[in-house]
């Protein structure tokens, strides 16, 4: 077929083609005398970029419970949660984030109108697949200052909470932080409307029902 006139550069064949050689492959041997590129984890640490999109942080005072984050989330990982701390009900619902769903796109952070939702560069969360350990994957994020404080003590980019206890009957949640602090609050209900007006919903997750052991 006839091609339209070619008005761009086409590389000549001589530049692309190579000549086979028996000897040249041996030149690779020079790498025997070079330093390896391997990062010796766990003895060495990798540098994580400053704004690495890791776990979330939430300033509970700034959060106005607008549910923009819940709406933009591609995985529907965010659920607005009504919380009671020390007997005081928070005026607005706060996002509860499920890391079993989260894709770390942080669109939720982009759309947050007050800047309450943010992210830190922590990325490591490893658990056994057991009911009580998998609780860790579903949390209401904590204040960024608290995470920073923990990060200074343990600079290994791990999840700031070691254990989350969720009492199914009283709906009481207990965070056990890595530095030994304990934080308790109570989940009153889910959704945008306050739980007193809306009907109380059944237990939230299906993943616990499916477990065998």
């Amino acid at each position, binding site marked *: 077929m006839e*091609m339209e006139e*070619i008005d*761009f*550069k*086409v*590389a000549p*064949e001589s*530049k*692309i*083609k*190579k*000549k*086979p*050689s*028996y000897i*040249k*492959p041996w*030149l*690779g041997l020079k*790498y025997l005398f070079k330093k390896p*590129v391997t990062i010796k984890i766990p003895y060495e640490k990798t*540098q*994580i*970029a*400053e*704004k*690495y*999109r890791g776990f979330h942080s939430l300033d509970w005072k700034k959060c106005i419970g607008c549910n*923009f984050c819940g*709406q*933009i*989330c*591609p995985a529907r990982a965010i659920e607005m949660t009504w919380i009671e701390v020390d007997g005081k009900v928070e005026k607005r619902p706060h996002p509860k984030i499920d890391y079993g769903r989260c*894709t*770390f*796109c*942080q*669109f939720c952070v*982009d*759309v947050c109108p007050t800047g309450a939702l943010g992210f830190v560069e922590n990325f490591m969360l490893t658990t056994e697949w057991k009911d009580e350990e998998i609780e860790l994957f579903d949390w209401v994020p904590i204040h960024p200052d608290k995470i920073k404080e923990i990060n200074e003590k343990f600079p290994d980019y791990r999840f700031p909470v070691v254990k989350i206890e969720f009492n199914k009957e009283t709906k009481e949640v207990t965070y056990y932080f890595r530095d030994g602090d304990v934080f308790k609050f109570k989940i009153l209900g889910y959704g945008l409307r306050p739980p007193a007006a809306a009907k109380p919903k059944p237990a939230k997750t299906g993943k616990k029902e499916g477990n065998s052991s």
Partner: protein
Amino acid sequence: MVSQSELIKEARENGMELLPLDKDTYELFFGPQHMATENFSIILKMDGHRVVKAIANPGFLHRGFEKLAELRPWYTNIALLLRICVPEPDVPEAIYSMAVDELMGWEVPERAQWIRTTVLEMARVSAYLFWIMGLSFKLGVYTAGQWAAAYRERLMALFEELTGARVYHIYTIPGGVRRDIPGDKWLRQLKDTVEYIKSKLPDFDHLVFENYITFKRMEGIGVMDKKFALAEGVTGPNLRATGVPYDVRRMDPYLLYPELDFEVPVLKEGDALARALIRRYELEQDLYILEQLLEMRPPSGPYKVQDPRLKNLPRFKVPAGDAFAHVESTKGDFGAYVVSDGGNKPYRVQIRGPSIAHGIRVLEQLLVGARIADVPVILMSLDNCPPDIDR
């Protein structure tokens, strides 16, 4: 499990005519667990060590992106669609964004265009390094593969700095990009990395592309001619290896490519070696393009469109219409067709991966007559990306 003899017996009872036993054919299920196929399965009918018939069996990675995209708001789809192609996730981001830009009638700011071009070229370099890794593992030159993977990590670190993620960047969005360039330090680092990878290219040549063994393994296998390639919808380096100078960057220019200077490599042989050499030369050209981009410096200005409609992202609406956008990826012509009915979600998104043409009919025909040891090499020389077949 049923045994082979039972199956054959049953097939005979159902009136199927089987090949006579003395012809010595057998079936080989190649993949999906085998690393060479990358979650893709080929059913081979073998005669001794020659392939008599091949059937491609895709679908192990199908998640129904096109359906999922219809259920999510316009912006959110970026976080989803980039998972179509793991080695270069920026390409689906870019085509989807370009199609939406066209629908919105947006003129993307110059700075955003510069960043998008740079990101696409970085993705091309990292995808080619990934491909060199795969090829050299399949050829048995493990050393070169280890190098390629290590050099790719440098680009990954740069991506991390720029976008905030290592692999799935979620960076190019309709109307521009998500973040600004971190600063001059990042540009310097990119320059260093480009120079570093460029200085390492001769080493790859020595071990892989000028190696006598490579020539022996790849010369004359998987041969396509021009007519066959065009009829089968082959694009990208695979088509250029048959003598057609088709490059989307030149023939349907987008972003900053009209201003950039690079050569389009074309060879006439159309065998696995020609495809490999074309890719090798394109890697060099991509590094050259990155150098030019760095010389141009990013133009000042905003990095995304300023539009009042962007205030409420979840309810952001796109005017009704349809648009097609495509870019040149390392695999070939990667296109997106986006239809909007004026709502806050796309009406239809179709992603056209190049591998859907390469991976099914072309592969089935190229494999016939090949030896079993050549199958991974042919597969790798076509540079298939199974997720973009399955979507």
